[in-house]
Protein backbone atom coordinates (compact mmCIF):
# COMPACT_ATOMS: atom_id res chain seq x y z
CA UNK A 1 0.00 0.00 0.00
CA UNK A 2 1.45 3.32 -1.03
CA UNK A 3 2.42 5.97 1.45
CA UNK A 4 1.67 8.77 -1.04
CA UNK A 5 -0.93 11.07 0.51
CA UNK A 6 -2.19 14.49 -0.58
CA UNK A 7 -0.25 16.06 2.29
CA UNK A 8 2.96 14.34 1.17
CA UNK A 9 2.43 15.53 -2.42
CA UNK A 10 1.92 19.10 -1.14
CA UNK A 11 5.06 18.81 0.97
CA UNK A 12 7.17 17.43 -1.92
CA UNK A 13 5.85 20.09 -4.31
CA UNK A 14 6.80 22.68 -1.70
CA UNK A 15 10.34 21.31 -1.55
CA UNK A 16 10.48 21.38 -5.35
CA UNK A 17 9.03 24.93 -5.42
CA UNK A 18 5.97 24.08 -7.49
CA UNK A 19 2.73 25.75 -6.45
CA UNK A 20 0.30 22.94 -7.33
CA UNK A 21 -3.43 23.48 -7.65
CA UNK A 22 -5.70 21.29 -5.51
CA UNK A 23 -6.80 19.43 -8.66
CA UNK A 24 -3.19 18.57 -9.36
CA UNK A 25 -2.63 17.42 -5.80
CA UNK A 26 -5.53 14.98 -6.15
CA UNK A 27 -4.42 13.71 -9.57
CA UNK A 28 -0.73 13.39 -8.70
CA UNK A 29 -1.52 11.61 -5.43
CA UNK A 30 -3.40 8.98 -7.38
CA UNK A 31 -0.84 8.67 -10.20
CA UNK A 32 2.24 8.73 -7.98
CA UNK A 33 0.71 6.08 -5.71
CA UNK A 34 0.44 3.73 -8.68
CA UNK A 35 3.98 4.52 -9.85
CA UNK A 36 5.55 4.21 -6.39
CA UNK A 37 3.75 0.90 -5.71
CA UNK A 38 5.12 -0.40 -9.00
CA UNK A 39 8.73 0.74 -8.68
CA UNK A 40 8.93 -0.46 -5.06
CA UNK A 41 9.28 -4.03 -6.34
CA UNK A 42 12.99 -3.41 -7.00
CA UNK A 43 13.44 -4.28 -3.32
CA UNK A 44 12.80 -7.90 -4.39
CA UNK A 45 16.10 -8.39 -6.19
CA UNK A 46 18.69 -6.40 -4.28
CA UNK A 47 20.52 -7.13 -1.08
CA UNK A 48 22.91 -5.30 1.21
CA UNK A 49 25.95 -6.67 -0.64
CA UNK A 50 25.01 -5.37 -4.11
CA UNK A 51 27.23 -2.37 -4.87
CA UNK A 52 25.62 0.75 -6.30
CA UNK A 53 26.31 2.16 -9.77
CA UNK A 54 25.73 5.87 -10.16
CA UNK A 55 27.40 6.29 -13.52
CA UNK A 56 27.53 4.02 -16.58
CA UNK A 57 31.17 4.50 -17.55
CA UNK A 58 34.07 4.19 -15.10
CA UNK A 59 35.42 7.72 -14.67
CA UNK A 60 37.06 9.38 -11.70
CA UNK A 61 38.58 12.76 -11.00
CA UNK A 62 38.35 14.30 -14.45
CA UNK A 63 40.34 17.50 -14.13
CA UNK A 64 41.61 20.11 -16.55
CA UNK A 65 44.58 22.42 -16.27
CA UNK A 66 43.84 25.33 -13.96
CA UNK A 67 44.07 28.03 -16.62
CA UNK A 68 41.76 30.87 -17.53
CA UNK A 69 39.80 30.18 -20.73
CA UNK A 70 37.47 32.46 -22.67
CA UNK A 71 33.98 32.48 -21.16
CA UNK A 72 30.68 34.33 -21.48
CA UNK A 73 30.76 38.08 -21.03
CA UNK A 74 28.63 39.56 -18.26
CA UNK A 75 26.25 40.85 -20.92
CA UNK A 76 25.89 37.41 -22.49
CA UNK A 77 25.35 35.75 -19.11
CA UNK A 78 22.56 38.23 -18.35
CA UNK A 79 21.01 38.07 -21.82
CA UNK A 80 18.28 35.59 -20.86
CA UNK A 81 17.46 37.01 -17.44
CA UNK A 82 13.83 38.01 -16.80
CA UNK A 83 15.12 41.05 -14.91
CA UNK A 84 18.50 42.61 -14.24
CA UNK A 85 20.04 45.67 -12.62
CA UNK A 86 23.58 47.02 -12.44
CA UNK A 87 24.99 44.02 -14.28
CA UNK A 88 23.35 41.52 -11.94
CA UNK A 89 20.33 39.24 -11.86
CA UNK A 90 17.49 41.09 -10.17
CA UNK A 91 15.00 39.19 -8.00
CA UNK A 92 12.31 40.06 -5.49
CA UNK A 93 12.85 39.95 -1.72
CA UNK A 94 14.50 36.80 -0.43
CA UNK A 95 13.06 37.13 3.10
CA UNK A 96 9.55 37.96 4.25
CA UNK A 97 9.13 41.38 5.89
CA UNK A 98 8.42 40.01 9.37
Amino acid at each position, binding site marked *: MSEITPDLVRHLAG*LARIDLTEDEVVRFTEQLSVIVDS*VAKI*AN*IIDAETPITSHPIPLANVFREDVVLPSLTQEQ*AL*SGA*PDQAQGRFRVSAI*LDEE
Partner: protein
Amino acid sequence: MSELIKKTAAELVALMAKGEVSSVEVTQAHIDQINKVGDAVHSFLFTSADSALATAKEVDRRRAAGEKLPTLAGLPIAVKDNLATTDAPTTAGSKILEGWISPYDATVVTKLRNELMPILGKTNLDEFAMGSSTEFSAYGPSKNPWDLTRIPGGSGGGSSSVVASFQAPLAIGSDTGGSIRFPGAVTGTVGTKPTYGAVSRYGLIALASSLDQIGPVARNVLDAAYLQDVIAGHDPYDSTSLTQSLGSMVEAAKSGSVKGKKFGLIKQLAGEGFQQGVKNRFAEAIQLITEAGGEIVEVDCPSFDYAIDAYYLILPAEASSNLAKFDSVRFGMRVTPEGNPTIEKVMAATRELGFGPEVKRRIILGTYALSAGSFDKFYGAALKVRTLIQRDFDNAFSKADILISPTAPTTAFKFGEKVADPLAMYLNDIATIPANLAGIPGMSIPIGLADEDNLPVGIQFLAPNYQDAKLYEVGAALEGILEGIWGKRMIDFAPNLEVK
Protein backbone atom coordinates in the same frame (compact mmCIF):
# COMPACT_ATOMS: atom_id res chain seq x y z
CA MET B 1 7.81 16.31 -54.60
CA SER B 2 11.37 17.01 -55.61
CA GLU B 3 13.34 13.84 -56.29
CA LEU B 4 16.22 15.35 -54.33
CA ILE B 5 14.53 14.97 -50.95
CA LYS B 6 14.00 11.24 -51.54
CA LYS B 7 17.73 10.66 -51.82
CA THR B 8 19.91 9.43 -49.01
CA ALA B 9 22.37 11.72 -47.27
CA ALA B 10 25.22 9.73 -48.80
CA GLU B 11 23.78 10.19 -52.31
CA LEU B 12 23.24 13.92 -51.83
CA VAL B 13 26.78 14.40 -50.53
CA ALA B 14 28.17 12.55 -53.57
CA LEU B 15 26.05 14.61 -55.99
CA MET B 16 27.19 17.86 -54.39
CA ALA B 17 30.83 16.78 -54.43
CA LYS B 18 30.59 16.03 -58.17
CA GLY B 19 28.97 19.40 -58.74
CA GLU B 20 25.80 17.84 -60.18
CA VAL B 21 23.64 19.62 -57.65
CA SER B 22 24.28 22.61 -55.41
CA SER B 23 23.77 22.87 -51.68
CA VAL B 24 21.30 25.70 -52.34
CA GLU B 25 19.21 23.36 -54.50
CA VAL B 26 19.32 20.58 -51.91
CA THR B 27 18.52 22.95 -49.05
CA GLN B 28 15.74 24.71 -50.97
CA ALA B 29 14.15 21.35 -51.87
CA HIS B 30 13.89 20.51 -48.17
CA ILE B 31 12.58 23.98 -47.30
CA ASP B 32 9.90 23.48 -49.97
CA GLN B 33 8.94 20.18 -48.35
CA ILE B 34 8.81 21.85 -44.92
CA ASN B 35 6.50 24.49 -46.37
CA LYS B 36 4.33 21.76 -47.90
CA VAL B 37 3.97 19.25 -45.04
CA GLY B 38 5.36 21.14 -42.04
CA ASP B 39 2.01 22.31 -40.64
CA ALA B 40 0.42 18.88 -40.96
CA VAL B 41 3.27 16.94 -39.35
CA HIS B 42 4.29 19.68 -36.88
CA SER B 43 7.87 18.47 -36.60
CA PHE B 44 9.51 21.85 -36.12
CA LEU B 45 9.17 24.35 -33.27
CA PHE B 46 11.31 26.83 -35.20
CA THR B 47 12.54 26.92 -38.78
CA SER B 48 15.51 28.88 -40.01
CA ALA B 49 15.26 28.79 -43.80
CA ASP B 50 17.21 32.03 -44.32
CA SER B 51 20.25 31.06 -42.29
CA ALA B 52 20.18 27.53 -43.77
CA LEU B 53 20.25 29.01 -47.28
CA ALA B 54 23.03 31.40 -46.27
CA THR B 55 25.14 28.43 -45.16
CA ALA B 56 24.28 26.61 -48.38
CA LYS B 57 25.37 29.59 -50.48
CA GLU B 58 28.63 29.79 -48.56
CA VAL B 59 29.26 26.08 -49.24
CA ASP B 60 28.52 26.49 -52.95
CA ARG B 61 30.82 29.52 -53.16
CA ARG B 62 33.68 27.73 -51.41
CA ARG B 63 33.18 24.58 -53.45
CA ALA B 64 33.24 26.61 -56.67
CA ALA B 65 36.48 28.20 -55.46
CA GLY B 66 38.00 24.74 -55.25
CA GLU B 67 38.24 24.55 -51.46
CA LYS B 68 38.40 21.18 -49.78
CA LEU B 69 35.21 20.95 -47.72
CA PRO B 70 34.14 18.69 -44.85
CA THR B 71 32.37 15.44 -45.84
CA LEU B 72 28.80 16.54 -45.11
CA ALA B 73 29.25 20.21 -46.17
CA GLY B 74 26.07 21.59 -47.68
CA LEU B 75 23.82 18.80 -46.42
CA PRO B 76 20.87 20.22 -44.45
CA ILE B 77 19.99 18.90 -41.00
CA ALA B 78 17.42 19.42 -38.23
CA VAL B 79 18.32 19.70 -34.54
CA LYS B 80 16.26 18.62 -31.53
CA ASP B 81 15.14 21.63 -29.54
CA ASN B 82 16.88 20.61 -26.33
CA LEU B 83 20.23 21.57 -27.88
CA ALA B 84 21.34 25.13 -27.27
CA THR B 85 21.68 27.39 -30.33
CA THR B 86 22.75 31.02 -30.42
CA ASP B 87 20.78 31.89 -33.56
CA ALA B 88 17.45 30.24 -32.79
CA PRO B 89 15.28 29.87 -29.69
CA THR B 90 15.78 26.79 -27.52
CA THR B 91 12.66 25.72 -25.61
CA ALA B 92 13.14 22.01 -24.82
CA GLY B 93 9.40 21.82 -25.58
CA SER B 94 8.60 23.79 -22.42
CA LYS B 95 6.71 27.01 -21.83
CA ILE B 96 9.23 27.90 -19.14
CA LEU B 97 11.88 28.50 -21.82
CA GLU B 98 9.64 30.03 -24.50
CA GLY B 99 11.66 32.44 -26.63
CA TRP B 100 14.95 31.82 -24.80
CA ILE B 101 18.07 32.35 -26.91
CA SER B 102 21.17 30.61 -25.60
CA PRO B 103 24.35 32.70 -25.26
CA TYR B 104 26.38 29.69 -26.43
CA ASP B 105 26.08 26.79 -28.90
CA ALA B 106 25.97 23.16 -27.85
CA THR B 107 29.18 21.36 -28.89
CA VAL B 108 27.20 19.20 -31.32
CA VAL B 109 25.77 22.34 -32.93
CA THR B 110 29.27 23.79 -33.21
CA LYS B 111 30.36 20.58 -34.93
CA LEU B 112 27.48 20.84 -37.43
CA ARG B 113 28.44 24.46 -38.13
CA ASN B 114 32.10 23.46 -38.58
CA GLU B 115 30.93 20.73 -40.96
CA LEU B 116 29.12 23.54 -42.90
CA MET B 117 25.74 21.82 -42.61
CA PRO B 118 22.75 24.16 -43.12
CA ILE B 119 20.54 23.92 -40.01
CA LEU B 120 16.87 23.88 -41.07
CA GLY B 121 15.41 24.36 -37.61
CA LYS B 122 14.69 22.99 -34.16
CA THR B 123 12.52 19.91 -33.76
CA ASN B 124 9.69 19.18 -31.36
CA LEU B 125 9.98 16.96 -28.28
CA ASP B 126 8.13 16.01 -25.13
CA GLU B 127 8.79 18.71 -22.56
CA PHE B 128 12.42 18.37 -21.41
CA ALA B 129 12.43 15.04 -23.28
CA MET B 130 10.06 13.45 -20.75
CA GLY B 131 7.74 11.23 -22.74
CA SER B 132 7.50 8.81 -25.62
CA SER B 133 4.87 10.42 -27.86
CA THR B 134 5.52 14.21 -28.06
CA GLU B 135 2.08 14.62 -26.46
CA PHE B 136 3.84 16.29 -23.52
CA SER B 137 5.31 19.04 -25.70
CA ALA B 138 3.96 22.38 -24.52
CA TYR B 139 3.63 23.31 -28.20
CA GLY B 140 1.44 20.39 -29.30
CA PRO B 141 2.37 16.95 -30.60
CA SER B 142 4.17 16.03 -33.80
CA LYS B 143 2.39 13.55 -36.08
CA ASN B 144 3.53 10.23 -37.47
CA PRO B 145 3.94 10.63 -41.27
CA TRP B 146 2.69 7.04 -41.77
CA ASP B 147 -0.64 7.95 -40.11
CA LEU B 148 -1.26 11.48 -38.90
CA THR B 149 -3.61 10.24 -36.17
CA ARG B 150 -0.75 8.42 -34.49
CA ILE B 151 2.27 9.38 -32.39
CA PRO B 152 5.73 9.69 -33.99
CA GLY B 153 7.41 8.33 -30.84
CA GLY B 154 9.13 10.39 -28.25
CA SER B 155 10.68 12.21 -26.90
CA GLY B 156 12.34 12.85 -30.27
CA GLY B 157 9.17 12.67 -32.36
CA GLY B 158 10.08 15.92 -34.07
CA SER B 159 13.37 14.54 -35.36
CA SER B 160 11.91 11.15 -36.36
CA SER B 161 8.97 12.70 -38.20
CA VAL B 162 11.26 15.19 -39.95
CA VAL B 163 13.33 12.47 -41.60
CA ALA B 164 10.32 10.17 -42.15
CA SER B 165 8.50 12.94 -44.06
CA PHE B 166 11.57 14.03 -46.08
CA GLN B 167 11.79 17.46 -44.47
CA ALA B 168 15.46 16.77 -43.76
CA PRO B 169 17.81 13.94 -44.67
CA LEU B 170 19.29 13.84 -41.16
CA ALA B 171 18.44 15.04 -37.67
CA ILE B 172 19.96 15.12 -34.22
CA GLY B 173 18.24 13.35 -31.35
CA SER B 174 18.92 12.64 -27.69
CA ASP B 175 18.24 9.35 -25.94
CA THR B 176 17.77 9.04 -22.18
CA GLY B 177 15.61 5.88 -22.16
CA GLY B 178 14.84 5.36 -25.82
CA SER B 179 14.07 8.84 -27.18
CA ILE B 180 16.03 8.20 -30.39
CA ARG B 181 15.35 4.46 -30.84
CA PHE B 182 11.61 4.35 -30.06
CA PRO B 183 10.72 7.20 -32.47
CA GLY B 184 12.93 5.46 -35.06
CA ALA B 185 11.01 2.20 -34.65
CA VAL B 186 7.54 3.71 -34.98
CA THR B 187 8.40 5.92 -37.98
CA GLY B 188 10.34 3.35 -40.03
CA THR B 189 13.61 5.24 -39.63
CA VAL B 190 17.04 4.58 -38.13
CA GLY B 191 18.24 5.91 -34.80
CA THR B 192 21.37 5.27 -32.76
CA LYS B 193 22.14 5.89 -29.11
CA PRO B 194 25.94 5.89 -29.06
CA THR B 195 27.99 4.67 -26.09
CA TYR B 196 27.54 7.02 -23.14
CA GLY B 197 30.13 9.76 -23.55
CA ALA B 198 30.79 9.14 -27.26
CA VAL B 199 29.09 12.46 -28.10
CA SER B 200 29.51 15.58 -25.96
CA ARG B 201 26.48 16.59 -23.92
CA TYR B 202 27.69 20.19 -23.53
CA GLY B 203 24.75 22.41 -24.41
CA LEU B 204 22.20 19.60 -24.21
CA ILE B 205 19.56 20.68 -21.70
CA ALA B 206 20.05 17.92 -19.16
CA LEU B 207 17.25 15.52 -18.31
CA ALA B 208 19.13 12.76 -16.45
CA SER B 209 22.84 13.37 -16.79
CA SER B 210 23.98 9.78 -16.20
CA LEU B 211 21.60 8.50 -18.91
CA ASP B 212 21.44 11.23 -21.59
CA GLN B 213 23.25 10.69 -24.88
CA ILE B 214 23.02 12.56 -28.19
CA GLY B 215 22.86 10.55 -31.40
CA PRO B 216 21.96 10.45 -35.09
CA VAL B 217 18.48 10.15 -36.64
CA ALA B 218 18.39 9.07 -40.30
CA ARG B 219 16.55 7.05 -42.93
CA ASN B 220 19.26 4.41 -43.29
CA VAL B 221 22.24 3.00 -41.45
CA LEU B 222 24.99 4.49 -43.59
CA ASP B 223 23.51 8.00 -43.25
CA ALA B 224 23.36 7.58 -39.47
CA ALA B 225 27.01 6.49 -39.55
CA TYR B 226 28.02 9.64 -41.44
CA LEU B 227 26.32 11.78 -38.80
CA GLN B 228 27.73 9.89 -35.82
CA ASP B 229 31.25 10.33 -37.24
CA VAL B 230 30.65 14.12 -37.41
CA ILE B 231 29.24 14.57 -33.89
CA ALA B 232 31.39 12.08 -31.92
CA GLY B 233 34.63 12.88 -30.17
CA HIS B 234 36.12 14.13 -26.96
CA ASP B 235 35.07 17.53 -25.67
CA PRO B 236 36.87 19.19 -22.76
CA TYR B 237 33.60 20.99 -21.94
CA ASP B 238 31.96 17.65 -21.03
CA SER B 239 33.97 15.87 -18.36
CA THR B 240 32.08 12.63 -19.07
CA SER B 241 32.95 12.61 -22.76
CA LEU B 242 35.17 9.71 -23.83
CA THR B 243 38.79 10.43 -24.58
CA GLN B 244 39.28 7.50 -26.95
CA SER B 245 38.06 7.33 -30.55
CA LEU B 246 35.49 4.65 -31.34
CA GLY B 247 36.63 4.44 -34.98
CA SER B 248 34.77 5.17 -38.21
CA MET B 249 31.10 4.22 -38.22
CA VAL B 250 31.00 4.83 -41.99
CA GLU B 251 33.67 2.18 -42.57
CA ALA B 252 31.78 -0.18 -40.25
CA ALA B 253 28.53 0.37 -42.16
CA LYS B 254 30.24 -0.10 -45.51
CA SER B 255 31.85 -3.37 -44.39
CA GLY B 256 28.52 -4.57 -42.99
CA SER B 257 28.13 -8.27 -42.31
CA VAL B 258 26.36 -10.61 -39.90
CA LYS B 259 28.32 -13.70 -40.94
CA GLY B 260 29.97 -15.57 -38.08
CA LYS B 261 28.60 -13.21 -35.46
CA LYS B 262 26.70 -14.41 -32.43
CA PHE B 263 23.37 -12.68 -31.78
CA GLY B 264 22.00 -12.90 -28.26
CA LEU B 265 18.23 -13.14 -28.14
CA ILE B 266 17.30 -11.53 -24.81
CA LYS B 267 14.88 -13.91 -23.11
CA GLN B 268 13.19 -11.12 -21.14
CA LEU B 269 12.60 -9.06 -24.31
CA ALA B 270 11.78 -11.83 -26.75
CA GLY B 271 8.27 -10.64 -27.26
CA GLU B 272 6.08 -11.79 -24.38
CA GLY B 273 3.22 -9.31 -24.22
CA PHE B 274 4.36 -7.66 -27.46
CA GLN B 275 2.02 -6.96 -30.37
CA GLN B 276 1.73 -9.99 -32.70
CA GLY B 277 2.84 -8.08 -35.80
CA VAL B 278 5.95 -6.92 -33.97
CA LYS B 279 6.75 -10.51 -32.99
CA ASN B 280 6.19 -11.74 -36.56
CA ARG B 281 8.58 -9.22 -38.14
CA PHE B 282 11.15 -9.84 -35.39
CA ALA B 283 11.00 -13.62 -35.97
CA GLU B 284 11.54 -13.06 -39.71
CA ALA B 285 14.53 -10.82 -39.02
CA ILE B 286 16.06 -13.55 -36.85
CA GLN B 287 15.50 -16.02 -39.69
CA LEU B 288 17.23 -13.69 -42.18
CA ILE B 289 20.19 -13.20 -39.84
CA THR B 290 20.53 -16.97 -39.49
CA GLU B 291 20.34 -17.50 -43.26
CA ALA B 292 23.07 -14.89 -43.74
CA GLY B 293 25.43 -16.81 -41.47
CA GLY B 294 24.69 -15.27 -38.08
CA GLU B 295 24.26 -17.53 -35.08
CA ILE B 296 21.41 -17.02 -32.61
CA VAL B 297 21.91 -17.80 -28.92
CA GLU B 298 19.47 -17.14 -26.10
CA VAL B 299 20.72 -14.95 -23.24
CA ASP B 300 19.11 -14.51 -19.85
CA CYS B 301 18.98 -11.03 -18.29
CA PRO B 302 16.72 -11.53 -15.25
CA SER B 303 17.19 -8.06 -13.78
CA PHE B 304 15.80 -6.46 -16.96
CA ASP B 305 12.38 -7.17 -15.45
CA TYR B 306 13.21 -4.38 -12.99
CA ALA B 307 14.83 -1.93 -15.43
CA ILE B 308 11.79 0.31 -15.89
CA ASP B 309 11.28 0.53 -12.14
CA ALA B 310 14.90 1.48 -11.48
CA TYR B 311 14.80 3.92 -14.40
CA TYR B 312 11.70 5.68 -13.06
CA LEU B 313 13.53 6.34 -9.81
CA ILE B 314 16.94 7.30 -11.21
CA LEU B 315 15.61 9.53 -13.99
CA PRO B 316 13.19 11.57 -11.83
CA ALA B 317 15.84 11.88 -9.11
CA GLU B 318 18.38 13.31 -11.55
CA ALA B 319 15.73 15.38 -13.36
CA SER B 320 14.44 16.95 -10.14
CA SER B 321 17.96 18.15 -9.49
CA ASN B 322 18.74 19.22 -13.08
CA LEU B 323 15.48 21.15 -13.46
CA ALA B 324 16.05 23.13 -10.27
CA LYS B 325 17.89 25.60 -12.49
CA PHE B 326 14.57 26.79 -13.93
CA ASP B 327 14.01 29.16 -11.04
CA SER B 328 12.94 32.40 -12.81
CA VAL B 329 16.27 34.06 -12.02
CA ARG B 330 18.79 33.52 -14.82
CA PHE B 331 16.69 32.57 -17.85
CA GLY B 332 13.20 31.75 -18.97
CA MET B 333 9.80 32.63 -17.62
CA ARG B 334 9.06 34.62 -14.47
CA VAL B 335 5.61 34.76 -12.93
CA THR B 336 5.16 37.28 -10.13
CA PRO B 337 2.08 36.70 -7.96
CA GLU B 338 0.00 39.59 -6.57
CA GLY B 339 1.25 41.60 -3.62
CA ASN B 340 4.88 41.73 -2.63
CA PRO B 341 5.95 38.08 -2.98
CA THR B 342 9.28 36.67 -1.89
CA ILE B 343 11.50 35.05 -4.49
CA GLU B 344 10.42 31.65 -3.19
CA LYS B 345 6.79 32.43 -4.06
CA VAL B 346 7.87 33.75 -7.46
CA MET B 347 9.75 30.52 -8.14
CA ALA B 348 6.81 28.33 -7.11
CA ALA B 349 4.35 30.34 -9.22
CA THR B 350 6.71 30.30 -12.21
CA ARG B 351 7.33 26.57 -12.02
CA GLU B 352 3.60 25.89 -11.60
CA LEU B 353 2.75 27.78 -14.80
CA GLY B 354 5.93 27.02 -16.72
CA PHE B 355 6.07 23.23 -16.34
CA GLY B 356 3.57 20.76 -17.79
CA PRO B 357 2.05 17.73 -16.04
CA GLU B 358 4.66 15.08 -16.82
CA VAL B 359 7.52 17.34 -15.75
CA LYS B 360 5.80 18.15 -12.45
CA ARG B 361 5.03 14.47 -11.88
CA ARG B 362 8.64 13.45 -12.39
CA ILE B 363 10.09 16.31 -10.32
CA ILE B 364 7.83 15.38 -7.41
CA LEU B 365 8.63 11.68 -7.81
CA GLY B 366 12.34 12.46 -7.92
CA THR B 367 12.09 14.71 -4.88
CA TYR B 368 10.39 11.83 -3.09
CA ALA B 369 13.03 9.28 -4.18
CA LEU B 370 15.79 11.52 -2.87
CA SER B 371 14.11 12.61 0.37
CA ALA B 372 15.28 11.48 3.80
CA GLY B 373 13.50 8.26 4.72
CA SER B 374 13.04 7.00 1.18
CA PHE B 375 16.52 7.54 -0.24
CA ASP B 376 17.88 4.04 0.58
CA LYS B 377 14.60 2.33 -0.20
CA PHE B 378 14.20 3.95 -3.60
CA TYR B 379 17.15 5.83 -5.11
CA GLY B 380 19.83 3.71 -3.41
CA ALA B 381 18.02 0.52 -4.36
CA ALA B 382 17.65 1.67 -7.97
CA LEU B 383 21.41 2.24 -8.19
CA LYS B 384 21.91 -1.36 -7.07
CA VAL B 385 19.57 -2.58 -9.80
CA ARG B 386 21.75 -0.62 -12.19
CA THR B 387 24.71 -2.76 -11.11
CA LEU B 388 22.68 -5.93 -11.64
CA ILE B 389 21.69 -4.80 -15.13
CA GLN B 390 25.32 -4.12 -16.01
CA ARG B 391 26.21 -7.60 -14.77
CA ASP B 392 23.44 -9.10 -16.91
CA PHE B 393 24.89 -7.30 -19.94
CA ASP B 394 28.43 -8.45 -19.10
CA ASN B 395 27.19 -12.00 -18.84
CA ALA B 396 25.18 -11.74 -22.07
CA PHE B 397 28.10 -10.24 -24.00
CA SER B 398 30.31 -13.11 -22.85
CA LYS B 399 28.01 -15.36 -24.92
CA ALA B 400 27.10 -13.05 -27.82
CA ASP B 401 28.65 -10.23 -29.90
CA ILE B 402 25.38 -8.36 -30.32
CA LEU B 403 22.08 -8.51 -28.44
CA ILE B 404 18.75 -8.24 -30.23
CA SER B 405 15.14 -7.50 -29.35
CA PRO B 406 12.20 -5.69 -30.88
CA THR B 407 12.79 -1.96 -30.27
CA ALA B 408 9.29 -1.46 -28.87
CA PRO B 409 6.39 -3.65 -27.78
CA THR B 410 3.92 -2.03 -30.19
CA THR B 411 3.73 0.01 -33.35
CA ALA B 412 2.75 3.69 -33.21
CA PHE B 413 -0.33 4.17 -31.04
CA LYS B 414 -3.10 6.74 -31.42
CA PHE B 415 -2.99 10.15 -29.78
CA GLY B 416 -4.61 10.12 -26.36
CA GLU B 417 -4.36 6.35 -25.92
CA LYS B 418 -1.81 6.42 -23.08
CA VAL B 419 -1.47 10.05 -22.08
CA ALA B 420 -3.55 9.74 -18.90
CA ASP B 421 -1.85 6.53 -17.74
CA PRO B 422 1.82 7.22 -16.90
CA LEU B 423 2.69 3.54 -16.30
CA ALA B 424 1.31 2.46 -19.68
CA MET B 425 3.32 5.24 -21.35
CA TYR B 426 6.48 4.18 -19.51
CA LEU B 427 6.19 0.61 -20.88
CA ASN B 428 6.96 1.82 -24.43
CA ASP B 429 10.60 1.99 -23.38
CA ILE B 430 10.81 -1.48 -21.85
CA ALA B 431 13.36 -2.70 -24.41
CA THR B 432 15.39 0.49 -24.75
CA ILE B 433 15.92 1.53 -21.11
CA PRO B 434 18.46 -1.16 -20.07
CA ALA B 435 21.04 0.25 -22.53
CA ASN B 436 20.88 3.71 -20.93
CA LEU B 437 21.28 2.26 -17.45
CA ALA B 438 24.43 0.41 -18.58
CA GLY B 439 25.73 3.12 -20.94
CA ILE B 440 25.94 0.73 -23.88
CA PRO B 441 25.21 1.69 -27.51
CA GLY B 442 21.97 0.70 -29.25
CA MET B 443 20.43 1.11 -32.68
CA SER B 444 16.94 0.67 -34.09
CA ILE B 445 16.40 -0.13 -37.75
CA PRO B 446 13.12 -0.82 -39.55
CA ILE B 447 12.30 -4.47 -40.36
CA GLY B 448 8.91 -4.17 -42.05
CA LEU B 449 5.27 -3.43 -41.32
CA ALA B 450 3.06 -5.10 -38.74
CA ASP B 451 0.33 -7.30 -40.25
CA GLU B 452 -2.53 -5.88 -38.20
CA ASP B 453 -1.97 -2.15 -38.81
CA ASN B 454 0.60 -1.79 -41.63
CA LEU B 455 2.80 0.34 -39.42
CA PRO B 456 6.61 0.16 -39.07
CA VAL B 457 8.35 -2.26 -36.73
CA GLY B 458 11.94 -1.87 -35.52
CA ILE B 459 14.65 -4.26 -34.37
CA GLN B 460 17.10 -3.11 -31.71
CA PHE B 461 20.77 -4.07 -31.77
CA LEU B 462 22.83 -3.60 -28.61
CA ALA B 463 26.63 -3.80 -28.42
CA PRO B 464 29.14 -3.66 -25.56
CA ASN B 465 30.40 -0.26 -24.47
CA TYR B 466 32.69 1.47 -27.00
CA GLN B 467 31.70 -1.00 -29.75
CA ASP B 468 29.24 1.21 -31.63
CA ALA B 469 30.87 0.09 -34.87
CA LYS B 470 29.36 -3.38 -34.41
CA LEU B 471 25.87 -1.86 -34.53
CA TYR B 472 26.62 -0.25 -37.87
CA GLU B 473 28.13 -3.48 -39.26
CA VAL B 474 25.12 -5.65 -38.47
CA GLY B 475 22.56 -2.87 -38.98
CA ALA B 476 23.79 -2.14 -42.50
CA ALA B 477 23.93 -5.86 -43.30
CA LEU B 478 20.36 -6.62 -42.23
CA GLU B 479 19.12 -3.43 -43.90
CA GLY B 480 20.77 -4.54 -47.15
CA ILE B 481 19.18 -8.00 -46.94
CA LEU B 482 15.72 -6.53 -46.29
CA GLU B 483 15.98 -3.96 -49.09
CA GLY B 484 17.00 -6.80 -51.40
CA ILE B 485 13.79 -8.65 -50.51
CA TRP B 486 11.56 -5.58 -50.67
CA GLY B 487 13.14 -4.23 -53.83
CA LYS B 488 13.05 -0.77 -52.23
CA ARG B 489 13.79 1.01 -48.99
CA MET B 490 11.53 0.83 -45.95
CA ILE B 491 10.70 4.52 -46.21
CA ASP B 492 9.45 4.01 -49.78
CA PHE B 493 6.48 2.13 -48.30
CA ALA B 494 5.39 5.30 -46.48
CA PRO B 495 2.23 6.87 -47.85
CA ASN B 496 2.62 10.16 -49.71
CA LEU B 497 1.37 12.88 -47.42
CA GLU B 498 -1.72 14.40 -49.00
CA VAL B 499 -1.55 17.92 -47.72
CA LYS B 500 -2.41 21.28 -49.17
